[in-house]
């Protein structure tokens, strides 16, 4: 639930409660006040009636407003009470306030009961209640509107900054740049987030720097181990150890290759190949086909290429070369002898197909680092990961699919960027 809605809901619930409570309170207070006023009037009327009775004992009073009768009860007492009296004309019971007193007037005891209809005051109360409730509802609605409007504009900087946080990626290495909101809490949150992301970026950088340094530092010892091994392998006195030496050599070569590929990957990630020139894929594909032509014929592969169109991409030529090289060598490596390779260039896409017997299982992992479809393969499993990385950094989409005994690798430019 959105904060604003939650807030509004709470607001509505509480203000309803407060309204009901204050409404009842007002009603009761007002009725007490009104009763008191009526009682005062009744008391005044009582003294008028007393005076009237003193002057003319036979005065006629009208029920139910005033009722006077002689009584034997001695002692004066006055009491107020509410009562219901049936109204013939309206045919209903009506509320009355009454004062009842026994008075000694010229030696005679009179019971005097004076009544006052409460209908008027009740009407008054109801009107008052309606007006109050209406006023309160209006006030409440206006308040609600204002808070919602205000909240929206107050939260605006929060949402702007939230968008920034959402688009934050540690690989872009761009620290967040929050606008000052002028609201203490938000500014504090921004500051904390800024600190956090800066920390993340710097940790990530350190980590990356570390793995890069490791890769670089590994290069020389690896080169020395492998060149020493090469000379040992060529030494006829060590014939008995050839097998072990060769297996060590194989492992060291693999390690070197892996290391080299990792250095390349981190270089691509670091954007060290940044380029704003457009590179013709057609030219590179042709060069690579020429370079690989002997391999293709050695493997007796059929090559079909459709290179009438050219794909121009804003990419450094060396990266484009690595991209096409890896895709082409991937195709050559994974096509059985006598198979077929198809290369198609379009203005917005490039297609590499090669014959195969079945779809690659777990094709979603195909571009992962160190993923190998055939675990026994000697390949380091970084070729397609490098391809993916290059594509990602140049707004190229790469897709694998299998159709009619053909593996397809399709690279396409995003539609927004022709």
């Amino acid at each position, binding site marked *: 639930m959105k904060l604003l809605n939650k807030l509004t809901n709470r607001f509505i619930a509480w203000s309803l409660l407060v309204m009901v409570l204050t409404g009842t309170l007002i009603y009761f207070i007002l009725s007490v006040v009104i009763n008191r006023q009526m009682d005062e009037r009744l008391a005044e009327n009582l003294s008028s009636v007393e005076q009237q009775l003193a002057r003319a004992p036979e005065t006629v009073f009208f029920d139910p407003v005033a009722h006077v009768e002689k009584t034997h009860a001695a002692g004066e007492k006055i009491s107020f009470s509410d009562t219901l009296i049936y109204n013939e004309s309206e045919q209903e019971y009506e509320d009355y306030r009454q004062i009842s007193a026994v008075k000694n007037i010229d030696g005679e005891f009179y019971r005097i009961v004076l009544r006052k209809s409460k209908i008027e005051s009740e009407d008054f109360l109801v009107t008052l209640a309606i007006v109050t409730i209406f006023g309160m509802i209006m006030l409440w609605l206006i308040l609600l509107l204002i808070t919602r409007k205000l909240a929206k504009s107050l939260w605006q900087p929060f949402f702007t900054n939230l968008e920034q946080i959402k688009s934050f990626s540690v690989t872009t290495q761009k620290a967040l740049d929050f606008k000052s909101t002028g609201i203490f809490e938000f500014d504090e949150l921004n500051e904390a987030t800024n600190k956090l992301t800066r920390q993340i970026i710097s940790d990530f950088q350190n980590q990356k720097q570390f793995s890069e340094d490791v890769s*670089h530092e590994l*290069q*020389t*010892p*690896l*080169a*020395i181990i*492998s*060149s*020493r091994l*090469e*000379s040992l*392998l*060529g030494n006829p006195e060590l014939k008995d150890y*050839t*097998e072990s030496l*060769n297996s060590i*050599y194989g492992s060291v*070569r*693999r390690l*070197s*290759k892996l290391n*080299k590929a990792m250095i390349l990957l981190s*270089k691509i990630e670091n954007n*060290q*190949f940044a380029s704003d020139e457009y590179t013709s894929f057609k030219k590179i594909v042709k060069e690579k086909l020429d*370079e*690989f032509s*002997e*391999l293709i014929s*050695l*493997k007796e592969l059929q090559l079909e290429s459709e290179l009438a169109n050219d794909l121009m991409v804003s990419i*450094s*030529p*060396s990266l484009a*070369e*690595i991209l096409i*090289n*890896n895709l082409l*060598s*991937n195709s050559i*490596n994974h096509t059985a002898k006598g198979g077929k390779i198809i290369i198609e260039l379009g203005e917005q896409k490039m297609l590499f197909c090669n014959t195969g017997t079945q779809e690659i299982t777990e094709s979603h992992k195909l571009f992962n680092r160190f993923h190998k479809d055939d675990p026994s*393969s*000697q*390949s*380091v499993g970084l*070729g397609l990961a490098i391809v993916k990385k290059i594509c990602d950094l140049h707004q190229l989409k790469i897709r694998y699919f299998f159709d009619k005994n053909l593996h397809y690798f399709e690279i396409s430019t995003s539609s927004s960027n022709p």
Partner: protein
Amino acid sequence: MKILIVEDEPDLLNEIKNFLVKESYVCETAASFIDADEKLAVYHYDVALIDITLPGGSGLQLIENLKRRNTDTGIIIISARDSLDDKLTGLDLGADDYITKPFHLSELNARVKAVLRRRKFEGATSVVFHEIELLPDQGTVHINGTSLILTKKEFELLLFFISNKNRLLTRESIAEHLWGDNIDLADNFDFIYTHINNLRKKIMKNGGKDYIKTVYGIGYKFTDA
């Protein structure tokens, strides 16, 4: 032939030096920019192997200084950074070749020989091994005087073999020499096998001897022994 090796990593420096000394070159070494700059100014070398990242300066600066003196020293850049920019800058400055760490020493050897051929003999020299004669500039091969048609890779292979004669060449180093280290040829040593077989057949068919010895499971050796 005198070679200066400029490299700041002592292990690698030693390794290269030992290797080239065995190839009967006279080798001198420099481990820093100043050291190298001095030596290049004072002495004459046939080939200088120059690392780009050096303490005290850039190898590219060394090349510039060297070129200003108008010497005929051949220059091979050794770099840990295989960035295209460095490569282009280096070659623009007048370097003859560019090799990326880590490399096979046999590869370095072949490159040094190629530079020496181009520099010292204006490319007119031929590479001869008994009855086989290669003209690297024209890409032609003669056996006992009759010309032999080889594919591009077969020619490169033969030149690589003769440059590193009597030395065991592992399949890995051959693969890297022929296709660079981009292609993942781990599973594809049979390509090399096929190339070598074709080369062997062509040489023998034209009356050459079979100098290519297979070292089972490891590589090949070009030898008359």
